[in-house]
Every structure is written in structure tokens, then in C-alpha cells.
């Protein structure tokens, strides 16, 4: 009987060439662990090409699964255990600095006997290097073991690996079998059976041949949870919001949300329209919204840029519209498959002229779901454009969250087709809030020409400069009216201290984990995470004043203060820091990373420790 080591958490990676199923293996592992009651977070590792050359360092495709005894809110720091299908893709992860020193590597051994002497020598050389670097490498005959079963290893190695991992982490094998039935349920029974066979074989092999075994204590779940990635959560949010039209154009990393939606939307009478381009997608959605069915368009950075003029039209004509931007690395084509938070200012200030719109950012997978529902509601209440920002990190990461309880209030009411009361004009802006009744085609007495030109209350083209100012005033006022309804952003940690970390979007889990770690060390650190970026919720200024230092942590560029050319006259701040400095006239610092990878809790801790050192200097000097 093996000794079972109990762990608080472990980070596992499964790395392969594209198309070898590492992601399915990892997602299944995550689901099984979640069903056991572990906290999980999965992050996909996606190469830029669909089919990069096999056995290439840049082609590493796979998944990271962080399994914890308690809730897990992010992908964590460095990897503890890797299953690699060849040594080249493994090198990709080694060189990216993602593996912990001494980490366990389970490496496919078939390359040792490969007929190509170059492949063989590459393998042996890498093996030597890894050993010298202190990694604990185990060669695993995955290919040979699959062949013994008479099954094609190129199709089934991933399930063999899943079986091994179930054994290593003492997971319930029956849950693994059920997971396979679920994953391959659409295909025929034979596919399920052969995959279960591979799973069992992997499990048996690990039981018999590996001399280590772990257990990560789980708390038996008491409520049903759903396990999806951020893009699926977005699509479910669209479904739940009652919106019925989603117009989109394919773009990475947003598209998978529409893939899923395309599969399910029609069942509830919805339509996913793949438009001829991003502009058409946005204007199609605007047309549908104008006609009474608030619509959504889902895109990523470059597509968002293309939609800007149309978004301005929706602002000017006061048409409710939900725009989701799953941010990726920019500018230009940038890093299509990588995470970045570079579009905040574009979302707030984009389109020409003054175009006030609401900007929200989802910070967890669960948030992706609820944000769309909230966005639709705000869009229709205020007749505004609501931009929901997520990013490539949320798009492909999975984290369980409580199964939502359906609420009929989520759903958009049917389009108002009653006659407009006598004397009401199409733009009867209310003096206090800027709100005006929305006229929907089909409503008797509501006939008017809606226009993107400056217009008066009757929607007549304005040639009078006073009228233009009136329209500007009321469109802007709606943001203030919304702001009055927002709750203060909660503070994670104490309400006062040495350093306040402020963030937005997908960095929430990492920031809070970093803060918890620092607080456990006795540091006086807290954090605040913003869901609404425009308008900003109340209380931020007061909260910031209760800390000696304030710093934002963001995944968008800021000039590094250490650079010889950079000083306070020219330093470019990260987006949120810039906004907070401008609004609250406080010295808000920022730290950012734009490596395309999720920011790690350990990196944040290091930043805050430096900041703390300076904070105490400031006090003692």
C-alpha cells in the first residue's frame, strides 16, 4: 500500500501537441475534482495556430488545473505536476517559467525508441537537462499501454492520462467514468466504452507503477454547482437575460461564446446572426434593439474598434444595446489568444464626440453570467449602450459556481406596443435624470424619425446650438442617474491600512489571494475590485484616503518608473490608475504586466511587499 500524502492544493498541467486532447483531459479532471467537492480553476494553454508543427516548443497546447481543498479563484503560481505527451511541448512550459522547481513530470516515453535519430537524441538530451535542473521526471509508456488495449493512442492517450491523474489524486474512478459518458455522450456507445477502458487502464497502471499518491481533502458539496468557462457563462447569461438576438462576427477569443449560443439559442426562439463583418453585427443588433428587442453583439478588441462608430449611433439615438468585449492582447492583431485588459479606455471613451456609455467588467466566471443579465436591464432602463468587458483569461477558464435560480425578472418584458400618450415627444428628456420614454415601432402616435444627427425633443434635426447642448447634457446625465443607484464597492480586508490594491476584471481572484497571503503575514493590506468602471460606484475616494498607499494591479501597459526616460511628467499610467488619479486627485500608483498570461498571486505579493517597504519609509522619514 502506497503512502498517501495529503496536500492543501496542487497545480497540474497536461501538455500536448494541438489536437491530442489535453484540454478535454484537464477539463474532465477539473469536473471530477469539483464533484468530489474540491475547489478548481482550469486555464487553457492555447497556441496561436490551429495546427502548429508537431513536437514544437511554441506549439504547446494544453491546460492547467488548480485543485484545492477550499475554493480556488485563479490559476495560481507555478505548476506542481505535469503530464507531457512529448518533451518539446514540455520545454515550452519550462522556458515560460511556469513549472515549480522540482516539479513532477510524467513524460511519454515512446520518443526514447523513436526511429528518427534526431527525435531520439532530442528526447534524451532534454531528459538529461530536466534531470540536471532538478525536475522529478518519470517516463510513462502511455503510447505502448494504449496499444496493448488495441486502441489508437493518438486518440486515446488523454483518457489514459486522466486515469493516471485520478489515481495520483485519489479521485473516485466512477466519477471519471460518468464524466466520460457525459463528455462523449453525443457520440455512440462504442466511443464511450473505449474511453472508459483507457481511463481504467491509466488508473490501474498508475496504481501499479507509481510510488506516490496524493489526496486533496474535499468538502462534500451541499449545493449543485455548474462548471463552465467564462464564454459559456456569457452565453448562458444572454439566454437568461431574455435577449433574443445576438449578432456577431467570428473573432478570437470571443467566438466560442457564440458557438455555444448558436447551439442552444434557437431552442428558446433566439437567433445568432453571423454578420458579414463587425460593423454589420453591431448595426444589426442596433436595428433589432430599435425595433423593440434589445440585442447583444459579442466581440474582441479589433472588432470592438470597428464597432465604434455604430456604438456612437446607439448612444446618440439612445438605443439600448449590450456589447460584450472579450479582451485580448492589443493593439492591432496583438495576441489573439492571450489575456489583456487593454480596452478599458477604448470602451469608456471610444467613438467620436462625447459618447457616454456604461462600462462593466466581469471578474469571475459567475460574474460573466450575471453581468449580461444586469447589462440588458441597465441598457433598457436607461436606453444606453452597456459594454461588458471580460478577457481571454475568463473566456477559457472554468470555475464552479452555485447553480443559478431562475428569476423571471431577468427577462426583458415584451416590446411596448401601446399607443404613446398624447403630447409625449420622442425625446422628452426628464430634467432630473435625462431619461426619456423609448418609442418602439408599432406604437401608435409614436411615429418619428430617429436620427444620429443632433436633434431636439421632437427628434427633429437640430440647427440651434442650444439644442445640441441640451441633448449632450441629458445623455450625460443618465450616467449620473445610474451612478446614484450603485452600491459602494466592498473592501476585501480591513477598511484602513498601509496599502490598498484596486483592480477590475479577471485579476480579482489573484489579487484577493495575494492580499489574504500578505494579511496572514501581518501586512496591513486590503483590496477593492470594481465591477462598474463607468460610472464608478460611490465611496472609492473615501476608501482610498484611509490607506497610506493606493496601487492598481492591471493587465494593461504602464510605463515602468525605473526606466531612465520615465518621470512624473511623462509616465503613462495603467487605465484604471489614470481614471482614479483624474477623478480623486490622489496619488494612485499602478503595477501592470502584459505577458498575455494571467497575473500570478505571487507576483502581486512581491509588488505589494515593495510598496509596503516604501510605505513604512514614507512614515519613518
Amino acid at each position, binding site marked *: 500500500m502506497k503512502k498517501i500524502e495529503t496536500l492543501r492544493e496542487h497545480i497540474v498541467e497536461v501538455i500536448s501537441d494541438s489536437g491530442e486532447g489535453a484540454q478535454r483531459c484537464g477539463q474532465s479532471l477539473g469536473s471530477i475534482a469539483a*464533484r*468530489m467537492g474540491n475547489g478548481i480553476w482550469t486555464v487553457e494553454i492555447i497556441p496561436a495556430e490551429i495546427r502548429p508543427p508537431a513536437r514544437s516548443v511554441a506549439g504547446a497546447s494544453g491546460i492547467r488545473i488548480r485543485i484545492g481543498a477550499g475554493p480556488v479563484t485563479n490559476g495560481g503560481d507555478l505548476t506542481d505536476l505535469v503530464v507531457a505527451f512529448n518533451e518539446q511541448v514540455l520545454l515550452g512550459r519550462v522556458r515560460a517559467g511556469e513549472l515549480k522547481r522540482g516539479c513532477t513530470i510524467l513524460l511519454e516515453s515512446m520518443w526514447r525508441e523513436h526511429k528518427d535519430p534526431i527525435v531520439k537524441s532530442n528526447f534524451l538530451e532534454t531528459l538529461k537537462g530536466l534531470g540536471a535542473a532538478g525536475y522529478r521526471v518519470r517516463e510513462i509508456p502511455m503510447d505502448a499501454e494504449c496499444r496493448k488495449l488495441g486502441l489508437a493512442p493518438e486518440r486515446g492517450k488523454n483518457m489514459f492520462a486522466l486515469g493516471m491523474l485520478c489515481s495520483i489524486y485519489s479521485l*473516485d474512478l466512477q*466519477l471519471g467514468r460518468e464524466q466520460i459518458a*457525459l463528455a462523449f455522450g453525443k457520440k455512440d456507445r462504442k466511443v464511450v466504452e473505449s474511453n472508459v477502458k483507457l481511463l481504467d487502464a491509466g488508473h490501474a497502471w498508475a496504481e501499479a507503477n507509481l510510488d506516490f499518491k496524493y489526496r486533496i481533502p474535499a468538502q462534500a*458539496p451541499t449545493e*449543485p454547482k*455548474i*462548471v463552465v468557462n467564462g464564454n*459559456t457563462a456569457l452565453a*448562458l447569461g444572454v*439566454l437568461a437575460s*431574455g435577449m*433574443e*438576438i445576438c*449578432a456577431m462576427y467570428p473573432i478570437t477569443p470571443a467566438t466560442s461564446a457564440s458557438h455555444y449560443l448558436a447551439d*442552444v439559442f*434557437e*431552442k*428558446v*426562439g*433566439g437567433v445568432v*446572426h453571423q*454578420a*458579414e*463583418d463587425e*460593423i*454589420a453585427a453591431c*448595426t444589426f*443588433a*442596433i*436595428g*433589432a*434593439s*430599435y*425595433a*423593440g*428587442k434589445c440585442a447583444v453583439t459579442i466581440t474582441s478588441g479589433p472588432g470592438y474598434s470597428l464597432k465604434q462608430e*455604430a456604438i*456612437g*449611433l446607439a448612444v446618440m*439615438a439612445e438605443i439600448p444595446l449590450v456589447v460584450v468585449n472579450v479582451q485580448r492582447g492589443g493593439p492591432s492583431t496583438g495576441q489573439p489568444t492571450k489575456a489583456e485588459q487593454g480596452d478599458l479606455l477604448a470602451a469608456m471613451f471610444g467613438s467620436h464626440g462625447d459618447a457616454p456609455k456604461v462600462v462593466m467588467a466581469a471578474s469571475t466566471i459567475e460574474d460573466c453570467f450575471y453581468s449580461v443579465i444586469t447589462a440588458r436591464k441597465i441598457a433598457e432602463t436607461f436606453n444606453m449602450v452597456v459594454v461588458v468587458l471580460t478577457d481571454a483569461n475568463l473566456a477559457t477558464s472554468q470555475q*464552479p459556481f452555485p*447553480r*443559478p435560480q*431562475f428569476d*423571471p425578472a431577468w*427577462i426583458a418584458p415584451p416590446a411596448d406596443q401601446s399607443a404613446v400618450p398624447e403630447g409625449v415627444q420622442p425625446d422628452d428628456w426628464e430634467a432630473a435624470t435625462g431619461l426619456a420614454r423609448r*418609442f418602439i*415601432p*408599432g406604437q401608435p402616435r*409614436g*411615429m*418619428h*424619425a*430617429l*436620427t*444620429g444627427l443632433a436633434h431636439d425633443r421632437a427628434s*427633429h*434635426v437640430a440647427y440651434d446650438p442650444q439644442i445640441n447642448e441640451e441633448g449632450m447634457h441629458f445623455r450625460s446625465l443618465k450616467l449620473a442617474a445610474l451612478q446614484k443607484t450603485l452600491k459602494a464597492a466592498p473592501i476585501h480586508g480591513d477598511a484602513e491600512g498601509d496599502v490598498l490594491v484596486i483592480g477590475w476584471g479577471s485579476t480579482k481572484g489573484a489579487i484577493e489571494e495575494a492580499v489574504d497571503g500578505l494579511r496572514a503575514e501581518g501586512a496591513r493590506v486590503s483590496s477593492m475590485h470594481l465591477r462598474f468602471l463607468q460610472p464608478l460606484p460611490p465611496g472609492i475616494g473615501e476608501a482610498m484616503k484611509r490607506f497610506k498607499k493606493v496601487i492598481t494591479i492591471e493587465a494593461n501597459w504602464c510605463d515602468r518608473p525605473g526606466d531612465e526616460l520615465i518621470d512624473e511628467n511623462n509616465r503613462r499610467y495603467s487605465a484604471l490608475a489614470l481614471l482614479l488619479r483624474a477623478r480623486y486627485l490622489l496619488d494612485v500608483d499602478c503595477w501592470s504586466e502584459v505577458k498575455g498570461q494571467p497575473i500570478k498571486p505571487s507576483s502581486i505579493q512581491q509588488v505589494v511587499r515593495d510598496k509596503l517597504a516604501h510605505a513604512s519609509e514614507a512614515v519613518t522619514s
Partner: protein
Amino acid sequence: MNECLLRLHDERFELEDYQSGVPRWCSGCGDNAILAAVQKLCRDESLHPEKTVFVSGIGCSSRFPHYMKTYGFHGIHGRALPIAEGVRMARPDLHVFVNTGDGDCCSIGAAHWVHAVRYNMDLTVLLHDNEIYGLTKKQASPTSPRGTRSNTTPRGAHLEALNPLTVTLGIQNVSFVAQAVDWIPEVLYQIVKAAFHHKGFSFVRILQRCPEWLPELFEPYVKDPRKTLLLKHKDGLQLSEAIARTYSNNREHDPASLAAAREMATQVDPIPVGILYRNEAVPCYEDLRRTTKVRTADLIRSGLEAEFDKFTVWPCTRN
């Protein structure tokens, strides 16, 4: 009670029910003739003003919705078609018209034009083609004849004009193409009416005079009826005696033949006027995409719960 009586009364409309304000187009502008034909159509078809929407882009012609007492959406340059598609997808109960110009449709919005033909949504599309940019003050448009002097082509337009008819007729799923001229109102009306009655994407190119920037362009055609070729057919244009007398240059053209339509479309002088092509059998995108399901809260709820079921991790009772 009163409301109900009023409704019965309302079934008949007057021209005034569709007129809104005095058009700010130049006098002699062809847009005025198009407006008159469309208002007459609305009255004759008893279109409920609240159920009728005119969507436009940007340009002289795109001011059109402001002069209709229906719903209207004056959008952004080049994007009238996708906006109208969104309206149509959301609301099968509305009558949706599109007013677009040669710059709006054939230049900045050309991508949408190609795809709109292929979607074949039930829209009546009026291409106000004066072969020049008007609102921005005389720049060559894609349909300006080669040699047209304009502010951006002071020595004459460099390229042969794009032919909107041949382009449209070359696109998969084309279902209705016609050509009209602003200076024969009776025929213009008949063509717009046929376009309105066609279920699908009805594309009407209307040659339209711009007295401000190209006053001479169509003068030879206006003056000499023989420079117009009227296309008549029992399933197409039917000529009144008066028209037939004036426009003696007319011939039979069967709108059922795509090949004949394509050949006719290449002709520039005399100008072919009539219904070039009509095919009622092409399916409409909205009919292919819309389900007949009534979107109740229960339907959405059950759809959502079914999806949640796929992803739910239930509390594990085994251990």
C-alpha cells in the same frame, strides 16, 4: 370604445398621413419624385404609419425618413442595410423600407449590399442613384460615368462606372431587381409597388437627377423618350396607353429569366426601365432563422434549466 371606432376609420389613409415637413432637397431633385411615389404607395396600400419603418444611411437621399410620418431611422453612412436587417429579424410584423444612395450603398456600404442580397430578407430597397456625392458637395461616386468632372476628379473620373444592376444580379439568392427613373413618375410608382409586393429583398435602382451638381447628366434621356427602353411583360411592367405612346421604345422582357435580366442589365443607352428579375421562390433569411416558438418566461426557463443540467455538478452522495 372610441379607440375601436377610430381604428375602423383609420383603415383608409390620406397622403397627409404620410407627409412630414417640407423636404429640404433642392428643387428639381429626383428625391422629391421618389418621395411622392412612396407616399402614394403607402396610401394606396393602406400601410399603418406605426407599422411602417424607413431606414436610411447618410447622404441627400437618406434624409428620406424625416419626410415620412411613419417610423424612421436615419442611421450612419453605409449601414442602412444591416440596421434594416436587424429590424426585420426582430419584427416580422413591420413593413421595412430602405433608402440609400450610390455612395451609401455602392461604396462605403458595399459589403453590406452584397450580403443583403444573399440574405434575401423581406425589405424594399430604393437605391437613389444620382451618380454623384451630393451632400458632401460633388465628389465622384462609384456610379459616376468615366470622365465625370467632380471636386475629387477635376480632370474627369478615372474609372468606368460600377453597374449596380449587374452586381446585384450576380449575387447568389438575388430575388428582385428593377430599374426606374425619377422623370417617369407613373412607371416609378408601378415599379416601387411591385417591389413592395415582392416577398424578399427587392432592389430598385432609381436613376435620379441632381440639378445642383450634375444638371446635364440625364438631360438627353429626359428630352428624348427613345433613349429609354421600357421593359413590359404580363408579369412585369404594364404600360398605360399614354406611356406606351410616349415611350415607343419598349419591348417584352420576362422577369423570370435571370440570363435575360443579366443581359439587359449591361445595357446603358438606352436605359432599360422595368422589372428585370423576379423570383418568388428564394427563401427569406428571417424565415429560415426564426422559429415559431412563443418566447414565454417558461420557455426560456426550461431551456436554461436544460442547459444548466448539462453543466451541473450535483452534490456527491456516494461517499
